[in-house]
């Protein structure tokens, strides 16, 4: 049976003794979607991914990936995974490492030999293919890890903090890889706390705080729908200010300056009309796109540690 959902979970929960790592994880990720999973460090992102991959057994709840139960052997053939801080036997060369992983995925020796140089090239390591991992920098190791996650043309790829340890060029490479995966209609589940990265790459995001998914939304909805507006106007009466509630929220006035958040940009002319009609003198009305970072702070707050 094929389903349009790549990931589907219902109230997944993980407890370690009295500590709750993930309290309630309910998600649906469409096939072909680039899905960002956002939250502060320690929010339960890695635990959630490991549950989806069958590395950690959930305490409660259920889930399916690519239409199969979690930890299903067959489905793992179509799933790639870049763990956070990728580590592997450092006595292997990059090529050998990929070869072993390819064989574990059930690829033939010939298929490995055909695909490995291509992947090494994609992550910019072809020159270092026969160098031992021991001599690699953190960023190079992360690149091998990424190549490993792309072996066997997966349908679903989990990337746990893929840019950790990478320099700007490396980050750009990760973005390009994700872009390439999108073109191939591969689903990507991206764990990250680097918001700018998510902003550029993801279609949809979920915010997780203290083990609970607090909000899921498409990035377009989030970033284009909500707009902060700065207004400068003289002679605004409290009644006029009150009236602004029709179009937005978080209204704060400080002398001539008014700040508010509107749900859609289309309401801006109406706001201008309202202020002018009330007899106030409007000097400026400036829409400001809310950055994902502001949103993140709003939704997730300041809990958790920062890096």
């Amino acid at each position, binding site marked *: 049976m094929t389903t349009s959902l790549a990931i589907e979970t219902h109230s997944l929960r993980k407890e370690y003794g009295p500590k709750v790592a993930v309290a309630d994880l309910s998600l649906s990720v469409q096939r072909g979607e680039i899905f960002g999973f956002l939250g502060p460090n320690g929010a339960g992102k890695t635990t959630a991914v490991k549950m989806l991959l069958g*590395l950690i057994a959930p305490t409660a709840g259920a889930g399916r990936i690519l239409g199969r139960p979690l930890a299903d052997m067959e489905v793992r053939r179509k799933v790639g995974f870049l763990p956070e801080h990728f580590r592997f036997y450092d006595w292997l060369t990059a090529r050998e490492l990929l070869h072993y992983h390819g064989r574990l995925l059930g690829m033939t020796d010939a298929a490995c030999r055909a695909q490995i140089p291509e992947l090494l090239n994609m992550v910019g390591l072809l020159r270092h293919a026969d160098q031992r991992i021991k001599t690699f920098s953190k960023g190079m190791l992360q690149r091998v890890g990424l190549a490993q996650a792309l072996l066997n043309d997966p349908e679903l790829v989990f990337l746990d903090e893929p840019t950790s340890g990478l320099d700007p060029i490396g980050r750009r490479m990760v973005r390009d890889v994700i872009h390439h995966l999108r073109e191939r209609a591969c689903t990507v589940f991206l764990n990250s706390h680097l918001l700018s990265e998510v902003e550029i790459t993801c279609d949809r995001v979920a915010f997780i705080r203290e083990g609970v998914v607090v909000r899921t939304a498409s990035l377009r909805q989030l970033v284009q729908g909500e707009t902060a507006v700065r207004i400068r106007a003289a002679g605004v009466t409290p009644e006029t200010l009150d009236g602004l509630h029709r179009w937005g929220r978080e209204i704060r006035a400080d002398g001539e300056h008014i700040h508010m958040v509107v749900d859609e940009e289309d309401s801006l002319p109406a706001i201008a009309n309202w202020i002018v009609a009330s007899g106030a003198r409007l000097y400026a009305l400036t829409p400001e796109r809310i950055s994902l970072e502001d949103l993140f702070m709003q939704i997730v707050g300041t809990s958790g540690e920062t890096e």
Partner: protein
Amino acid sequence: MNRIALIARLTFHEARRRKIMWAAVLLGLAFLAIYALGLYFLRGEILEGMEQYPQGALTGLNMLVMMALYAVNFLIIVMTVLTSVDTIAGEVASGAIHAIAAKPIRRAEILLGKWLGFAVMLVLYAALMIGGVVLATRLLTNYTPPNILRGSLLMILEGFIVLHLSLLGGTFLSTLANGVFVLGLFGVAFIGGWMEQFGAMMHNETVVNIGILSSLIMPSEAIWRWAAYLMQPPILRTFNVSPFGSNAQPSLAMVVYTLAYLAAALAFAIRNFSRKDL
């Protein structure tokens, strides 16, 4: 099966790449060279003794071989612990296991693959060392201890006890704690074995029972003593109490128990590892 073989190959690859294999083989050859050299220079006296006082010379020669095999026995155990102690625990700690365990491979297959790799190494190392001692002795003095094949198999069996415990410990202990766990158990078996021998000599049943209990907890020493018993000339069996020999009556029940012990340890290791959150 294919995946088990792949993990076994990886385990072997590691031993080769990290020069563990070469160090073990080269120092093993050094051990055999020293033994053969010593035997070569003692050979005149031994052969002369054989003619004049065969019983005594044979006893002395057997003692010499058994001393070498005792050292080999100890080396097999230490090598097995050293090579396998880090395999699961270390990979869990470093996170290297994550990328493997997320692949289409069962945890049981990962563990059995590692087992297979170490088992082959253990058998090859034991074959080199025991074979070397026996061959040197045979070539230089034309003497071979009795029941050498059965004795060797028992020594290898003892290595497997340590291997299984080390794999089991690796599923719930850190690398260092696992080493302490396995060698600590070896110590328990060692002192228990001695107590049993002295108890038997002095006809003290309580002390014998303490020894038997320790053998049930860890059967390694009991298996070595049976190997030693088999490889001694019958005359020595009645009175020899030394680490190189044994006066203990061998018991087939102990071997049966050990096989069950091995199976249980491996089953527990697989169960632990399969349920472990990585």
